[in-house]
């Protein structure tokens, strides 16, 4: 088994992050926006793991633990986020984010 080039890992992470960001910015469906956010989080996790591979022993451990932490937070965040989506959808009967541009003067 050949070791993966760390640069490639980071490149993949950056690509995934950009994809997620583009989904967040371009899509109007709130569910897809949330999915984009998840993608961005996981890209960062991948980046952490990629770097931790480069480091020795104890320091490497921190790089592996942080993604676990992030995954737990992300689960909680998805919970709250989806609940909020349900709430606001009940009010307007739509999942189009542009329909919620209510913040006027």
């Amino acid at each position, binding site marked *: 088994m050949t070791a993966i080039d760390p640069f490639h890992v980071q490149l993949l992470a950056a690509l995934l992050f950009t994809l997620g960001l583009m989904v967040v910015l371009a899509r109007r469906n709130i569910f897809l926006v949330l999915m984009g956010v998840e993608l961005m989080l996981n890209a960062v996790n991948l980046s952490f793991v990629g770097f931790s591979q480069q480091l020795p022993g104890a320091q490497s451990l921190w790089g592996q633990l942080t993604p676990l932490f992030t995954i737990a937070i992300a689960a909680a965040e998805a919970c709250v986020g989806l609940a909020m989506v349900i709430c606001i959808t009940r009010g307007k009967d739509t999942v189009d984010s542009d329909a919620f*541009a209510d913040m*006027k003067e």
Partner: protein
Amino acid sequence: MNSYFPLWLIAALPLLGAILNGALSLAGARSANGPSKGFVSLIAVACPGLSFAFTLAAASHLSATAPMSQSLWTWFSAGGFHLDFTLLFDRLTSMMLLFVTGIGTLIHLYSVGYMWNDRGFARFMAYMNLFMFSMIMLVLGGNLPVTFMGWEGVGLCSYLLIGFWHHNTEYNDAARKAFVMNRIGDLGFLLGAFALVQVCGSLDYLDIRGWFHNAPGGDAMSPSTHGWIKAAALLIFLGCTGKSAQIPLLTWLPDAMAGPTPVSALIHAATMVTSGVYLVARLGDLYSFVPEVLSVILVIGCLTAIFGAVAGLFQNDIKKALAYSTVSQLGFMFMACGVGAYDVALFHVFTHAFFKATLFLGAGAIIHGLHHEQDMRRMGGLHKLKGMFVAYMVLCFGWYAILGLPGGSGFVSKDLILERLWHGHAALTIGSSHVDIAQIVAVAALITALITAIYMTRVMMLTFWSPSRLSDEAKHHVEGTPFTMALPLIILGAGSMGAGYLWFEPMRLDIFYEYLKPVLHPNEMAAAGGLAPGMEGATVVQTDWLVTFMATVGCIAGLLIAVVVWRKGPTGKSAEAHPSSDPTGFGASWTWAFDRIYHVLVVLPTRWASLILYWLVEQALIGGITYAIAELTAYLGDGYATIQRSRLRTSLVLSVAGAAAILWIHPITDGIRYASSALSHILSLLY
């Protein structure tokens, strides 16, 4: 004998009463009837009464030569200047305090009856007690700032009490007028005090006295020091003209009659308005040093006395007639000060307090009985009505005393003033010639006394000794004088007859003179020496029977004139044809002339200046800048808000772009730096 006596107790008691009654008034503000009137009046009368008792006790501790001076705490200390919160109790203070607290207590008792049915009873009593506290501080103060504190306090209470019935806009205007006129005088007082610090380096009365006693006389003093002293004397006298309603600051006192009658008696007749005379006597060392200023005081007092007496002739409102009489009598007191006869001036303050309080309270009893009728044209024959007997009797006493008929207290004190004027000296320098105007002023004072007799008899004629002009209905609704009002009236009525016997030369009675001699006599000697060099110590003590005779003849002549003119009631327009109680003479209020002058000289320029300031500074300058800033912010905000108002995704894109820009700032600046260094490198290669 000169053991320690806590002087602060005298002042603290009325303050306690004011705080208690003020708290009760506030606590009962929402209830239907207000706090218990019995309790309020107990506090209100007991506090000044106890002050009177303490003053008596302190006076019995007092020795003739050593005044009690007590420093309570250090007020402030800066550089070489040090000021304590000092109380000074000498014979002058004790005399003033005895009649201030004594007459004050009686008038508080009278107020209980007079104000009983008023909703603001507790508030009124709180103000009255606060006034007593301020007046006691004014008299008891051992240096000018403490006196000034009391001076401001009595001005404040005067304002509060003139405008006591604050639902009436005219009354509020009168209150404001009194306050503003007094402020002008107060400014003079302050500036005078500053000038005095320049000279003496201290504001303590005892230090000032010491400084003037050791002052280099005549040419040894530098002209600038002499100028400072003269300025101090004149400026402090300006303060006195404000408080004591002398020309030029007299216009507030007639309007001040808007307040309840006990207020007019206590503040605007007996005590507060005499504080100007007290201050001149207290600073006698200063005034005796500058005879020119004494002459100014003499002339001002004389003019005010004549003006007040003449104006009194034309009043229809019984209280305004008495107010002008007060102005005139205060003029008499300042005339006495003007020839350096401080003790005589204070004796007139003392007797005047009795008979003018009597007159005002008697008038108050009439006003109370007739349900707030003050127009004398609607009175007449009142002594025949049931319930008016006490008012009639005491007004007779007061009238007898102020006229100066033999036996009353006014006879004694006014005669003493006339004698001192006649035998006194007052140097007035016109150009290069010196004129002694004391005799001229004495004649003017004599004529004023005659006019006094006319207008006071007119008041009595219109009120009592003329055919009744009351409606039958009004006659049946006359209210009697309650006991709480009758008792002070009788005591004060007796006082206005008997007070003169404290200094009655023909009977070898000179308790008053001897009592004040240690404090005032040196200054009077100095004043006599300054006014007429070589005459030191030549103050008259013997009775001059010629002056007495002339004064008595003048009084009786005035009395007879008034009886003949007004025997059938008021002359001029009747109350029905001329419903306003404004004076009928010359068709206008008698301070009209002064009010007009102030309107042109002060009010109009102030208005113009404020208009100019309003348009140039307020609107153009300040307004322009602030509006510009506000408009700019509004435009920027509007512009930015359009971003927020648009779609959510646009905002997100912008915020991501912003984050990216922040991340890229470092590489970009580095790039610029690199590019510029490369450029300079290329340029250096080229040249």
